[in-house]
């Protein structure tokens, strides 16, 4: 096998691992091989390492997501009006307001300990606000920062469990879950429990479970922890696809580099800063 053929074989395998359909992977591999031959260059010189090139190709060919949300575009999916949280005399945050509509992304930013996760829990309904009003659509997806998956269950078992909550059949839940995993560049291996996945892959499972039911509002609490750079980019691509598909997305983050992509910014400050 020549180095060019070996490179093509690796590209084909990597594309399939990244969730590209085998026929499409073979077509892309042949195109790349032919293009390199036409240019009279070795494909590894022209495109770089096969695995890295596969990631770029896979991102380019992923099919656009069908409409996600059932909400009419522009409908309010979350409204916070003067929301505050206090523990005794300690004010965590005060007078937070936000109107998030279907097809919009909002980011909650702030330093550690300023109440970002608390605000998300208030939006979920697991923590009561000390003041203000929270209105929220009923069909939501939620990815917590920690503890959102069971280490003893495989991804397919998670999909069946969450699918049961949403009234989905077992097969549909698994096929939908696997399809969503591929959008994040991950193909789950059957029989492998979540505890044996890397931290980043567990977080991908966490994110996929939050969108399994095509919710109208997706609440995400720093869901990209443990992601590598490519997965992080895939994640933000996915957030924007949810937005384009008509869902409202609220992301808690402490990273500032992607804030120009969001429609609303909720900045929380530590109480001593206020």
């Amino acid at each position: 096998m020549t180095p060019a053929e070996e490179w093509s074989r690796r590209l084909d395998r990597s594309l399939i691992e990244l969730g590209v359909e085998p026929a499409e992977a073979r077509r892309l591999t042949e195109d790349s091989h032919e293009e390199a031959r036409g240019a009279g260059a070795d494909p590894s010189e022209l495109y770089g390492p096969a695995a890295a090139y596969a990631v770029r190709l896979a991102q380019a060919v992923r099919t656009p997501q069908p409409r996600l949300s059932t909400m009419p575009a522009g409908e309010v999916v979350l409204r916070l009006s003067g929301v505050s949280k206090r523990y005794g005399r300690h004010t965590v945050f005060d007078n937070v307001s936000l109107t998030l509509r279907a097809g919009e992304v909002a980011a909650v930013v702030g330093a550690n300990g300023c109440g970002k996760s608390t605000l998300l829990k208030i939006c979920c309904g697991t923590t009561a606000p000390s003041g203000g009003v929270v209105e929220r659509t009923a069909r939501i997806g939620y990815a917590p920062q920690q503890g959102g998956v069971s280490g003893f269950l495989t991804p397919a078992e998670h999909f069946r469990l969450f699918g049961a909550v949403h009234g989905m059949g077992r097969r549909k839940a698994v096929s939908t879950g696997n399809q969503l995993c591929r959008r994040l560049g991950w193909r789950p291996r059957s029989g492998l429990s979540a505890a044996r996945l890397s931290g980043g892959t567990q977080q991908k499972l966490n994110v996929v479970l939050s969108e399994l039911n095509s919710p109208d509002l997706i609440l995400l609490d720093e869901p990209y922890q443990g992601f590598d750079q490519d997965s992080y980019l895939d994640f933000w691509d996915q957030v924007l696809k949810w937005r384009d598909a008509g869902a409202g997305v609220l992301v808690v983050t402490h990273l500032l580099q992607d804030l120009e992509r969001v429609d609303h910014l909720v900045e929380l400050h530590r109480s001593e800063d206020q």
Partner: protein
Amino acid sequence: MVSAVVAVTLRELLRRRRALVLVVALPLAFYLARIDTTGQAIRFLALGVGWAVATLSLFTHVSSRDLDQRLAIVGASPSALVAGRQLALTATGLGLAGAYFALVALTQDVTHLWTVALLLGTSVLIAAPLGAAVSLLVPRELEGALALLSIMALQMLADPDGTGAKFLPLWSTREFTTYAVDPSGGADLTQGLLHFAAVAALAAVITWIAGVLRLRPRRLPVPSTR
């Protein structure tokens, strides 16, 4: 929904292999320690089964709390989540009780063998909600395990004829054991059954109320205007 929770709970339990080995070993150790005295061996076996199942229940509920809360947030019924976990734990406990019933049948000469099945089964039916109730009232694993240890140590040390022993959850096992090995020993089977029914019902109600209160998210109004 309940069946899905039962299925995943059973899978989770089966994959905790080391914990399962200890769950099986604990009652066996109690039984072997008293094997020379039939009545004591059976009573301690029942207490061992109860302790093992209660501890399994405690850790199952604590470790599944975050996942269950997430499921409740996205629409799962808290009652279905609690019921599913409890059914799986009870089925596992009854399997364990069945295996130990077979062991007693093979190794002991018991006058009323069916009473051994009754006392092992009732121990499981009390222990599963007892562990769950402790996990819901004492939310951390260490504190919960210590609380269960205290209850079970008291159960073993307290004089069964004393008034205080009747307030302990597995007092009924003593009545059933006495009846099983010595029907003329003055045991009151009806009293044992009444005690079991009261304790099992109380533990189940506490489990259900605490579970639903802990898991149920606040109901938020849907945004009314565009």
